[in-house]
C-alpha cells in the first residue's frame, strides 16, 4: 500500500510540473487580455481593465473577420457534412468490390500533407478566377476536410442497424428518404460530432485563407490577427490577447460540447481503431 501511495505522489508531482509548463502561455493570454500595460511576460495586472476588449470589439477588428470566419467555415462545414453523409451512405450500406479501394484512398488522403498542395492550388485558383473569393476558398476548405469526414461518418453509420431501413424500404421510401428520415436521425450524436469537429478544424485553419484570400475585407479571423503586427508601430499585446480569446472562444466551447463523445481514443476517431 505504501508503495502505491508513493507512486501516486510521484505521478502527481510530475504531472503538476508538466501542467505548469503547459499553463504558462495560457496564463499569459488570460492576464495580458485584462492588463492595460500588457507586455510579453506572465504578470498579474496592477489593475484589471476591460479596455483591451473594448478596443478590439469594433467592426473592423473583430466583427467583420469573425463574420467572415463564420460564413467561410460555416458554409464549408455544411458542404462537407452534406457530401460526407451522402457518400458514406452507399459505402456503409451497399457492399461492392468498389468500397475497399475507395475507402483506402480516402484514408490515404487524410494522411497527405495538405500544406504541400497549396502552391498548385493557388496557381489553379488564379487560372480559373477563384482566387480571392469566399466560395472558392470555402470549396477548397470543404474538400480538405472531406476525406476525414467521410471516414468518420461511415464509421458512425455502420453503427446504425439496418432493420429500420428495411422497414422503410418496404414502405416504398427511396434511398434519399431513408437516409434523411431514418438513418441520419438515428445517428444524431455521430452527425453532431462530425459537424462540430469539421467546424473546429476549419475555424483554426490559417494557411488556406492566408493563400487564397487577398482582400482585407474578406479575411477571416485566423489571418486578420496579423494586422496586430502590421498596422501599429508597436504591437499592443493586451489587444492581441483579447482578440485571441474572442477568436478562440467558439472552438473551445464547441470542443467542450463534444469532448465526452470524442472520449479517450477518438482523436482521429475511426481512423485510429488499430
Amino acid at each position, binding site marked *: 500500500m505504501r508503495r502505491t501511495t508513493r507512486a501516486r505522489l510521484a505521478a*502527481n508531482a510530475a504531472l503538476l510540473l508538466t501542467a505548469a509548463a503547459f499553463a504558462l502561455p495560457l496564463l499569459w493570454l488570460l492576464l495580458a487580455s485584462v492588463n492595460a500595460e500588457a507586455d510579453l511576460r506572465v504578470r498579474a495586472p496592477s489593475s484589471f481593465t476591460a479596455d483591451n476588449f473594448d478596443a478590439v470589439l469594433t467592426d473592423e477588428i473583430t466583427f467583420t473577420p469573425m463574420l467572415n470566419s463564420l460564413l467561410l467555415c460555416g458554409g464549408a462545414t455544411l458542404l462537407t457534412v452534406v457530401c460526407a453523409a451522402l457518400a458514406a451512405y452507399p459505402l456503409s450500406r451497399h457492399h461492392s468490390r468498389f468500397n475497399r479501394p475507395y475507402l483506402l484512398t480516402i484514408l490515404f488522403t487524410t*494522411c497527405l500533407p495538405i500544406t504541400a498542395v497549396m502552391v498548385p492550388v493557388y496557381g489553379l485558383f488564379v487560372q480559373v478566377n477563384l482566387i480571392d473569393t469566399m466560395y472558392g476558398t470555402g470549396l477548397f476548405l470543404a474538400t480538405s476536410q472531406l476525406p476525414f469526414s467521410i471516414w468518420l461518418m461511415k464509421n458512425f453509420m455502420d453503427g446504425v442497424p439496418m432493420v429500420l431501413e428495411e422497414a422503410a424500404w418496404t414502405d416504398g421510401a427511396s434511398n434519399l428518404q431513408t437516409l434523411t428520415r431514418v438513418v441520419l436521425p438515428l445517428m444524431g450524436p455521430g452527425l453532431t460530432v462530425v459537424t462540430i469537429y469539421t467546424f473546429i478544424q476549419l475555424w483554426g485553419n490559417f494557411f488556406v485563407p492566408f493563400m487564397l484570400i487577398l482582400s482585407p475585407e474578406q479575411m477571416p479571423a485566423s489571418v486578420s490577427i496579423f494586422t496586430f503586427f502590421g498596422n501599429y508601430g508597436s504591437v499592443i499585446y493586451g489587444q492581441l490577447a483579447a482578440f485571441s480569446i474572442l*477568436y478562440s472562444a467558439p472552438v473551445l466551447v464547441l470542443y467542450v460540447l463534444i469532448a465526452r463523445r470524442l472520449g479517450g481514443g477518438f482523436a482521429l476517431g475511426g481512423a485510429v481503431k488499430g
Partner: protein
Amino acid sequence: MSTRGTGLWRWVPIAPATALLLLFLAGPIGYCVWIAFTNTQLTGASGSDFVGLDNFRRAFADGDFRNAVRLTLVFTFVSAVLGQNTLGLALAGLMRAASRPVRTVTGTLVITAWVLPEIVAAFLLYTFFRREGTLNAVLDWLHLPSQNWLFTLPILAVSFANVWRGTAFSMLIYSAALAEIPRDITEAAEVDGASGPRRVWHITLPMIRRSIGTNLMLNTLSTLSVFGLIWAMTRGGPGNRSQTLPVFMYDQAFLKSLIGYGTAVALLLLLVGSLFSIVYLRLMKVEV
C-alpha cells in the same frame, strides 16, 4: 421496390464528394506534378516551358533546400518523435497512477493547448520564447542563464511550440491504448515480482506497439506539414535557421516567384507524405 435503386444508381450519392475531391484535391496534385517539371514563374512573361528534372536537380544542389530538409528532419524528430510521442505516452502512463483532480487539471490544460487555433498557439509561444518573455522570466527567477531563444535556437523554439500544441493527440491515443490492457496481465507480472520499469518494457510497451506505430506515423505526417506555427513565430528566420520545407516552399514560390521550383519542393513533400501514409495503412492493416 424499384425506388431502392439498383446497380449504378445506388452509387449516385457518392458523386458530389467524389467530384469535389477530384476537382480540388486530385486536380491540384496532378497540376503539381506538371508544374514541377516546368519553369513557371509568378511574374514576368517567360511563360512556362517544360524543363524536365531541372527543378529537382536544382533542389538537390541548392544549399538552402538541403538546409530545409535538415531542419525538417530536426523539427519532426524533436517535436513529433521525441516530444509529442514520448511526452504523450509519459502523461498517459502517469495519469493512471495520479489522483483524479491532478489528472483532470493536466488533461484539461494539455487539451486546451491542442484545441486552440494554430495561430493563437503560435502567438502564445512567440511571447513565451521572446527575450522579454515568460521563459526568460522563469529562468531569471531560478537564477539560470537566459537568452534570446528565437534568435539563438529558433528551430528548438518552434519544435517546443509544436510539442506544446500537439502532445494532447498522443496523450489521448495512449490513454485509450493503456485502458485496453487487461488488468490481470499487469497484476500477474506484479505478483511475479517484476519491477515497474521492467513491467513497462516487457509488458506495457509490447502490448501497445500498434498504437505506438500509428501515433508515430500520424504525428510525423502532421508535423511535416506545419506551416502557420513556424511562420507566425519566426518566418523561418533568423536567416533561414528555422526554414522547414513548407516554409521554404512558400518562400520560393511566392516571395521569390519561382512557382515551378516551389512546386517541385511541394511534390517532394507530398511523396514523403505518401510513403508514410502507405506504411501507415499497411501497419494498421486497415479493415475496411
